[in-house]
């Protein structure tokens, strides 16, 4: 046990941070908000050239084969600098391919590692619910094809991605329900309609409609009986790496606020000398540190191949409340200025508000934790991992 970063982990995180500090000023984040693509192609190329995308991909596909914890650390920095890059939307499905992909699908990772192939993923539908049970988009087997019908909501970076990993409900040619599965779809396929959304993050989310979209059966991720596991992994990676980003962003917002209150004066002294402000700051520290510890533990378990659904749920439910509290408190400490569009702090506030609502809400994740606590046999003990019962709500 040593929950702190080791030397190599700290070095990689620092290096990623230094790169983004130099290359990703708030002015770039603003410029990209106004752009059509909602990402910076130039920064993406540099980021990929430095090898960050391949960090945790298999060595056979040109990656470095490091544990997932490294990607978590890099995403903390991506969040910290609000880097307008499709790292999360690309790496989440890429990691599912790395675990479940067929040899042909695994080949795609070579192009992911070098930044050539941008990915996206679609899970949530019109209900807005973060739940496998809410996946209704149908994938009907038809000869050698799968025919997709339905809609995915809140799909990040669909418009710039070449492929999208879509969570579907599979049906046999006879109409029999075969359960959830993940299917890779070319974003340029016939029958796809994409409608951009305007989110508080001002990033690239869309609603994507699939009307009789045909993909070959070979685009199904993993063996037929692994469909559910692949979708679970897709959802877990999506949630937990959002936590990494949220934590990095919230920490940065806290640092802005701490700097500000050390210099802003009122009643004859820096407002940061007032206990009311200091106590708010102390609570912000525990909120981001708590998120960091829960998030890193969940990523670490995933990196070891240990069951981590409950840990992911803990991290995301906590992060949703606490990271927003931190960013809102940072606003409070800034008084009026944080509300002004030109002032950079609101870039962090706006993104974190969005991220708390993606990848599962607080209540959805808590329902999962409650199920592991209460719908399982035997006594619980903190420090002993919980597992979800087979029929857990999600």
């Amino acid at each position, binding site marked *: 046990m040593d929950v702190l970063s080791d030397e190599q982990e700290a070095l990689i995180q620092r290096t990623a941070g230094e790169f983004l500090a130099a290359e990703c000023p708030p002015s770039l984040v603003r410029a990209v908000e106004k752009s059509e693509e909602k990402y910076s192609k130039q920064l993406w190329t540099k980021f990929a050239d430095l090898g960050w995308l391949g960090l945790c991909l298999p060595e056979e596909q040109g990656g470095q084969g490091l544990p997932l914890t490294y990607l978590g650390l890099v995403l903390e920095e991506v969040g910290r600098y609000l880097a307008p890059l499709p790292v999360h939307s690309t790496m989440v499905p890429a990691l599912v391919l790395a675990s479940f992909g067929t040899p042909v699908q695994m080949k795609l990772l070579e192009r992911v590692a070098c930044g050539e192939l941008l990915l996206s993923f679609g899970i949530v539908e019109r209900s807005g619910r973060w739940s496998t049970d809410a996946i209704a988009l149908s994938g009907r087997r038809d000869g050698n094809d799968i025919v997709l019908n339905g809609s995915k909501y809140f799909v990040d970076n669909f418009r710039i991605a070449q492929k999208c990993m879509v969570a579907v409900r599979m049906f046999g040619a006879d109409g029999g329900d075969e359960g959830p599965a993940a299917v890779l779809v070319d974003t340029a396929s016939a029958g796809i309609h994409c409608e951009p959304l305007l989110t508080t993050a001002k990033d690239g989310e869309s609603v994507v409609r699939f009307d009789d979209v045909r993909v070959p059966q070979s685009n199904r991720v993993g063996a037929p009986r692994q469909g559910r596991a692949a979708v679970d992994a897709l959802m877990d990676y999506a949630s937990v790496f959002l936590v990494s980003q949220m934590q990095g962003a919230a920490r940065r917002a806290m640092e802005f606020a701490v700097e500000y209150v050390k210099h802003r004066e009122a009643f004859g002294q820096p407002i940061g000398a007032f206990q009311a402000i200091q106590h708010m700051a102390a609570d912000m520290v*525990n909120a981001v540190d708590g998120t960091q510890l829960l998030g890193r533990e969940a990523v670490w378990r995933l990196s070891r191949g240990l069951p981590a659904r409950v840990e992911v749920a803990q991290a995301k*439910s906590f992060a949703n409340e606490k990271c927003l509290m931190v960013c809102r408190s940072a606003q409070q400490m800034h008084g009026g200025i944080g509300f002004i569009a030109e002032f950079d702090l609101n870039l962090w506030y706006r993104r974190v508000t969005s991220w708390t609502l993606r990848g599962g809400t607080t209540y959805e994740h808590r329902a999962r934790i409650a199920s592991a606590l209460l719908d399982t046999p035997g006594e619980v003990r903190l420090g002993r991992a919980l597992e979800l019962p087979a029929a857990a709500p999600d």
Partner: protein
Amino acid sequence: MDFAFTEDEERLRAEIKAFIARQLTPEVKAQLIAEREGHGRGPLAAAFFRDIYERGWLGVSWPKQYGGQGANRFAQYIVEEEFYRAAQLVIGGGGTGVPAVLAAGTEEQKRYYVPGSIRREISFCQGYSEPHCGTDLAGIRCRATRHGEIFIINGQKIYTTGAQAATHIYLMVRTDPNSKRQAGLSILLVPMNTPGITIRPLWTIQSDPPAPPKTTYGEPRTNEVFFDNVEVPATCLLGAEGDGWAVAQRGLNLDRVGAWRYLISVMRDEDIVNLIKKDEPPTEGLRQDPRVRDKLAELWTEGQVCRLMTMRSLSLEQRGGRFKYEGSAEKIWAPEHGVRATEAISQILGPYAQLLNGSPHAINNGVFAHNLLGAFQSTVNHGSVQVMRDQVARKGLGMPKQRN
């Protein structure tokens, strides 16, 4: 980054659990409780401690040359956790007493106090608080005047928990009569049987009826301790004369973290889940209540943060690092979680949560009611959460001190 105990550590945990299952009989437990109440050590308890001692579980992380095992901080933690869970027995751990002696003591003091504590022949109570100053400790008035090779102590301490059973008091005194605030304070290790010391009990909110096992701050009693021309040799001094503030700081930090502090903050979370899981009257049906399910999941997650903050402190200690703000941060999070959990649980249980130990229909011997009486105390002692927030802001974030 590594969030698991090693195989060796897990093996140690299994050994301890097996030992406890075998040796901690109800008769032994009864004698342990009697000892805590100041009735001295019974023969079964003595044999129990001897067995623990022979297995090397007392002083696991303390140096071999003074009778410890020289093992790492995590092994020590495991011992502390298992014995506290089984019998609310505090073994090793903390920062006052032996860890302070190891950090600041002379060779002679280490050779005397460490093996003695490991054999549980020596135990310390803490003499910091005084009637007029607790949080603001630098206002200490209890004084020790030096006369050549002796000190003469006069003054009063308050809330000296365990003074009735301890062999020694870890005493913070003012040795320089002309000093103010932190300067001029010293630590003395004073045998409690020295003439001139009077102990007077202060009965707590938990004394009638006594709190059941596993209560957060179930102490029925603390004490006032009076010093009337108490004469001790100058060799009682721990660290340099006038350096008491610095000597105490590290110990106070260690007292704010560790197995004990963690467990008193989170055992509620387990108790309530395990109770509701049974799905029996009077909590039958709560298992399906979505409000209850949501709240328990929230509390559980907060409890995990308590655990992870404890692991962070141990990781820092194991690396030989010093706390910057982490000990103080944990001393906000864990006690306040304990309070939030206690109060939320009482609303889940309804009127049953007011029933004390011995009352008809009390749940789990009234532990949830006694927690309502005790949990908040953890936010006050050893550095209140207000002062801990000051520390996190100033030491962790470099925020300025308020001008007067």
